């Protein structure tokens, strides 16, 4: 509204802007990443318009618990803030329980399925007639858990109907109905993704059960807060999955209870985002030849926009009256979506009876969830995709009765375009990421057996972003006393562990970063001999969102912590808690990964040594 309705039409809101005293930003913590970066630019535009009308409003922000509310507020509004951090609100007693599913196979380090464990715990609460919310990590696990819970109450009249699923992609009407059911108590349990984490009024529930660690301390508190909002007794249960981060948290509860929560990061000067908002701002009010907007040189950006004919400098540079006029017919705010980098999506059409739309999926995750033969689940009802119309952005599905779900296999290739900084084996810079869904696995409900697979031929998705890159030089590879397959396993295992540690160090959501390995050993036609390998940890947003530079600075910490995670893990040859489950990686993955890290971390490993080794290997 402010972005595309009010700011571009500010003359009609002149009275408002002239008298604007306060701007309130609620749920500040939600404005991080891409959304936050957009919001910061919207606020820059708002402040610009306010200056035009001679007002200078005060910003008031409220936030859930994050480490840096003040810093975030100051970054978003680019103004100094006073922090009020004591809460006087009454609070009921709250039990916080961490559950680590028991190990069922010591050798392989396999624990009982955390989804199964979540289901058992949720059922117990339900039987005691407590209203609860179950948070799952993904849309898929939301649907799986909904199915399981409905099954548990199949023999109770009206039981399954009172257990609902909830996630992005449901149509608004269905969502409103579920929210109302929760507030009124008709719905006894809802299984949700982070869609119900904040913002939506569902009243106070008795218990919040989290299937898997939400990834950040802030999100965990937010989800726990869905239970017991009034001064009543409540409980929050976190069931750890076998992912390294979950295992770390459940073994070190003090990390969660004592450590400061995450910092919310934004990068308002991401060029993709900044340029979009500079266009909007130029439309709203011509820039002067001396004006600034954000960290980059706006004059240089305007000069480039002028080459495209979007703006034109009227008057001479240095002239006080010179202005960058908007010289285009378009209305730029319409082309900028604040929540994502692209506003495209896919709709899901059920053709079982009369065609009807039953859901939608954002553009990026479309191919992975709606590919042909994929099982699409809505509140436990299973549909199979009959036809995936990529160009038309539609998937046609038909209701089916089967006992498996599908999991897409995505292949990602990262190419380095430009290096911003480099020191030794670490660097960060700009990369090109191409990902393609190449196939899928059929996985049986409950047993998680792999019961089949298929190949797919779908279009690629591409983006430019920034990335941290770890190079494992040729001579290090040479020093590994293993066969090519085992070397490969070591690198794959190392990247698996590194991703988790990076997420912990950056304190970001798991979807914020992606990982990819670039190695000849991994290609179909490996070059003869031993070659170097590279591990990319990239920002999973076009243009990057500011993770790669901090990660580059924490390079040593990253390697040390990764080594610690792997070495201190109790398993023999790798498990989901360190280098990944055996089966995904080979028997020597753990050993090889540690060896690589030892070599990279060895104090003697300086550049002179490196050259020497290089010479030797040559």
């Amino acid at each position, binding site marked *: 509204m402010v972005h595309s309705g009010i700011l*571009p*039409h*500010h*003359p*009609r809101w*002149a009275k408002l802007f002239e008298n604007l005293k306060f701007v309130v930003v609620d749920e500040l913590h939600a404005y991080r990443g891409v959304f936050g970066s957009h919001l910061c630019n919207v606020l820059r535009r708002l402040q610009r318009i306010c200056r035009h009308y001679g007002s200078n409003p005060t910003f008031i922000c409220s936030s859930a618990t994050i480490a840096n509310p003040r810093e975030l507020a100051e970054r978003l509004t680019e103004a100094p803030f006073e922090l009020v951090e004591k809460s006087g609100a009454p609070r009921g007693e709250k039990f916080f329980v961490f559950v680590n599913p028991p190990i069922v196979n010591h050798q392989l380090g396999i624990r009982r399925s955390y989804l199964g464990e979540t289901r058992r715990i949720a059922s117990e609460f339900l039987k005691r007639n407590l209203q609860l919310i179950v948070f799952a990590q993904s849309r898929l696990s939301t649907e799986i858990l909904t199915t399981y819970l409905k099954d548990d109450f199949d023999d109770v009249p009206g039981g399954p109907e009172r257990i609902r699923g909830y996630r992005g992609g449901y149509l608004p009407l269905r969502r409103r109905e579920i929210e109302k059911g929760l507030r009124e108590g008709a719905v006894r349990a809802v299984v949700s993704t982070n869609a119900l984490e904040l913002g939506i009024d569902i009243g106070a529930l008795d218990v919040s059960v989290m299937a898997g660690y939400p990834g950040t301390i802030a999100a965990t508190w937010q989800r726990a807060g869905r239970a017991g909002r009034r001064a009543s007794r409540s409980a929050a249960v976190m069931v750890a999955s076998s992912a390294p981060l979950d295992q770390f948290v459940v073994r070190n509860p003090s990390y969660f209870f004592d450590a400061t929560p995450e910092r919310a990061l934004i990068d308002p000067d991401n*060029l*993709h985002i900044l*340029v979009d908002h500079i266009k909007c701002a*130029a*439309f*709203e*009010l*011509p820039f002067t030849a001396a004006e600034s907007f954000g960290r*980059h*040189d706006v004059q*240089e*950006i305007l*000069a*480039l*926009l*002028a*080459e*495209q*004919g979007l703006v*034109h400098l*009227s*008057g001479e540079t240095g002239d006080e*009256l010179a*202005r960058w*006029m*908007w*010289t*285009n*017919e*378009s*209305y*730029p705010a319409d082309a900028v979506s604040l929540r994502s980098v692209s506003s495209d999506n896919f709709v899901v059409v059920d053709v079982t009876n009369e065609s009807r739309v039953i859901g939608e999926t954002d553009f990026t995750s479309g191919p992975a969830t709606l590919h042909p033969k994929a099982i699409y689940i809505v509140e436990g009802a299973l549909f199979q995709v009959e036809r995936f119309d990529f160009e038309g952005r539609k998937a046609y599905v038909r209701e089916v009765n089967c006992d498996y779900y599908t999991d897409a296999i995505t292949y990602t290739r990262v190419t380095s375009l430009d290096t911003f900084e480099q020191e030794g084996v670490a660097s960060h810079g*700009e990369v090109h990421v191409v990902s393609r869904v190449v196939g899928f696995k059929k996985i049986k409900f409950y047993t998680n057996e792999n019961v089949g697979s298929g190949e797919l031929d779908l279009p690629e998705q591409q983006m*430019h972003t920034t990335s941290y890159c770890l190079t494992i030089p040729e001579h290090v590879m040479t020093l590994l006393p293993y066969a090519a397959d085992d070397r490969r396993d070591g690198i794959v295992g190392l990247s698996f562990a590194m991703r988790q540690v990076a997420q912990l160090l950056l304190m970001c959501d798991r979807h914020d970063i992606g990982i990819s390995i670039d190695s000849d050993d991994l290609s179909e036609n490996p070059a003869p001999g031993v070659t170097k390998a590279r591990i990319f940890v990239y920002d999973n947003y076009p*243009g990057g969102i500011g993770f790669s530079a901090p990660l580059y600075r924490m390079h040593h910490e990253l390697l040390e912590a990764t080594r610690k995670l792997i070495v201190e893990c109790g398993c023999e040859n790798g498990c989901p808690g360190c280098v990944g489950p055996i089966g995904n990686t080979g028997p020597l993955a753990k050993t090889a990964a540690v060896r690589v890290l030892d070599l990279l971390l060895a104090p003697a490993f300086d550049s002179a040594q490196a050259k020497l080794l290089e010479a030797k290997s040559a």
Partner: protein
Amino acid sequence: MSSLTDRLRGIITPNRADVVERAAPAVRATDGDLETLLDGKWYGHCFIVERRLPPSAKYGRSRIGELAARLTSSAHEAPLVCGNDAAKPPFVFFDLETTGLSGGAGTQAFLIGCAWFDDDGGLTTRQYLLARYSDERAMLAAVAEDLGRAGALVSFNGKSFDAPVLETRYLFHRLEWTASQQAHIDVLHPARRFWKEDDCSLAVLEQQVLGAWRDGDVSGYEIPERYFQFVRSGDARPLVAILEHNRLDLVSLAALTSRLLEIVCGGPDYAENAREALALGHIYARARAEARAVDAYERAVTLAATSRSRRASVLTTEALRALALAYRRARRFDDAAKCWTALVESGCPSAVEREAIEALAIHHEHRRRDLESARLFAQRNLDVSGRQHRDALKASAKHRLDRIERKLSCTDSRPLLP
């Protein structure tokens, strides 16, 4: 070249083929060139192009002087057309050329054209060109004076486009927008009624109604880009055609207004065809000039009967229906009934037929008190409503039929008085 620029080049990709030439423009117009090319003059910060058509000049089928005279003699009817009693001469015609159609703070009116008839019957057009961005405020202030003199502003689609765009510009510069208090005749809506439903553009109307033709007119979608070319290069040549286009729009607007008020003032006899007569009736009816509306509709029925137009039957239906309603408002119920009967007999579309039959049922039941006939119409009404699957209509038709039958049975059982 800095690294920022390099990185930006990857992001800001050329979206169209029309990437602007960076070569220095061959013509960097000086203020003097502007005056020569466009034949205008600088007045302080305003660049103004003023033209005058003498009374003897011909535009389409008429002379400017005739148009002026007709407008003067029919000006007192202006309130009928614009629905605002305050509308009176002098009329100031206005028309904008803008940098886009989307509205908002980034859409500018780079050319504001005003026109008025002079006392001697000539037509003056005055066009304000935004030659330098920094002059906009001065230009708007000058325009406000011209518009402020008007007893009524006259535009073509100005109520929904030109006026809001101008208002935004005035608000942008913190200037007062006084035109919202002035009477404003938007000729588009009556023109649509009188002359053309679809593609009711000025260019079409001036050919059809005024008999005027333009040569080498610039098309609307080219206009913003031509202006941007001028802004970027300083070369005023692309503007020549735009100024001419705008000037002709103003002349056509003035001529159309003159013709429109002439018909409204002259009444049904001035209507050349059924369509004009019908439109005239609507204008009178809206202004609650019932007697004049009846005259106009009667004329429309007559003209439609002899019309050879493809739309003759549609016009007949529309005219008869409008006339029936006008008669009813004038409490001439028998005349109204004749129109409804004529409609039913003419084989009009079923929705109108249903309305006519219902009106006749009402007429016979309540006015004529001829219950037998009323029952026949009520029965037909029920049949027609049933065919249309409109439950609410069907229910009300049934209700009416039942009531009439009840009344009939009362009448039957009542002993006849000697």
